[in-house]
């Protein structure tokens, strides 16, 4: 069986990648994806602790995080789309998301 600390290391590394990503990327959409990575790293921690402690609280918490993250994505995408439409007078169709 894979030891608990391996999951915690992975979760920590993912969280760091996400946090560094938010700090160095300048495209709002990419920054937003990095935030989602941070939240999912936390979910991994919760699941690992939950298994290790043999309690269901962590899994329940992860459920909440998933749903809240979904709500955050929806609000976030809505605001980002709106910024490009109203602020920069630029149609979202003109956005090239793959190039930063």
């Amino acid at each position: 069986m894979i030891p608990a600390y391996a999951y915690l290391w992975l979760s920590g590394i993912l969280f760091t990648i996400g946090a560094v990503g938010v700090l160095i990327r300048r495209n709002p959409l990419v920054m937003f994806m990095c935030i989602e990575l941070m939240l999912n790293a936390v979910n991994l921690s919760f699941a690992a602790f939950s298994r290790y402690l043999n309690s269901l609280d962590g899994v329940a918490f992860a459920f909440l995080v998933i749903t809240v993250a979904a709500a955050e994505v929806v609000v976030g995408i809505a605001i980002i789309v709106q910024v490009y439409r109203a602020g920069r007078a630029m149609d979202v169709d003109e956005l090239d998301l793959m190039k930063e």
Partner: protein
Amino acid sequence: MIDLSAVHIDYQTVLPELVVTGTIVVVLLLDLVVPPDRRRWLAVVSVVGLAIALIASIPLWGQHRSAFADTMAGDSFAAFFNVLLLAVTILTVLISPRYLRCVHLDFGEYYALVLSAAAGMMLLAAATSLMTIFLGIELLSLALYVLCSFSRLQEHSQESGLKYLLLGGFATGFLLYGMALIYGATGSTTLLGIRAFVTSSPGTNVLLLLGIGFLSVGLAFKASAAPFHMWTPDVYEGAPTIVTTFMSVATKAAAFAAVGRIFVATLPSLEAQWYVPLALIAVLSMSIGNVVAITQSNLKRLLAYSGIAHAGFIFLGILPGTTDGLAASLFYIAAYAAMNFGAFAVVTALDAKGEHADELTYWTGLFYRRPFLATTMTIFMLSLAGIPPTVGFFAKLFVFQALVTAHLWIPLIVGILTTVISLYYYLRVIVVMVTVPEGAPVEREGVGLPMTVVVGLSALGTTVMGLVPQVFGWALQATRF
């Protein structure tokens, strides 16, 4: 068969939150059937719902309820914050319809979003589990992200919402990681369980301390305390003024409710470990807020930095780690709510009329144009500066007193010094208002009855609250967990 009695379902504990949530649903559905020119009825329904929730909060005073598997508390602390938050929300909704019509933002979603934010804040104030704390913070944040970018055609508002969203999401990540580590270290997500673990097993637990550190970052961000305050001026400036008015007061109060429950009620035995980081947050907030505010020429930004400084003062009361210190913080929050809400309400009143009313130059000679607004603004400024006999003076006095009792001299000295510095920019606003303007005076329309009443009430609260000794007594009783 699952034993539901262990979960302890108790609807009375969460009745205020339930009432507000129900009002959200009603307002959303009403918005679909009410014609656009009758939108003020949405405000009326919202105020009625909020008032019922306020009445439902009062029976919680003096109780020690704990429900839903120890995730929600129904106690004086929750009642204190519920009354404060609901009062602020009611005042906000009262002055909203006229402002929204003036700036062409009269949409029904606005009320549902303000109510959602209020529900999140109340949830946060009553939360006694990491899960409910997280839910409360997210509910209030998500509603506020949308409210900040509510002005769909204004670039500033959009940018404000986007900045708040990205930095807020970043802070949420830290908050959650801290919660995960605390859960891993203590094996519990309820504050009761965490407290039991901390008191039964003393000694340094790196995982737990790291978790508390991350959690504090997230909470300090929501309370806009330095060094996690960078978003505050931009977001406050860009958001519609009515939203700034609401969030500058209510978000801070709700975030401090969580800080109080976590640090003073749950982790007093770890005070030696959390004292230095929290003291740094308080000292940095007071210094940065008060010094940078001097250079601001935009009133919304000035008040944003002033808010950062006041967050520092509120943190001071937490530092002794005692419930008496926390009571001083609670009193400070109530005082801050009255005076800061009033100050921003005056900005809102002017913003609805003229363009760039948030620039300080617009305020030149306000005394001769709008004597009522200028007089009340003077009261708010004097109170924010901490000049007796306003409530701002007593708030600072109680907090400093708590520091003296605990022999915490360095934060005390910084607090006094920065208070002196802050006099400069608060008094400057008053000086600008009494300066005789060049040229003919401009418009002199009224600001509407609701605004006059709300600003008047805030001014009354600011002058009287400090002179009524019962208020501090309530704050004291609210901290008897």
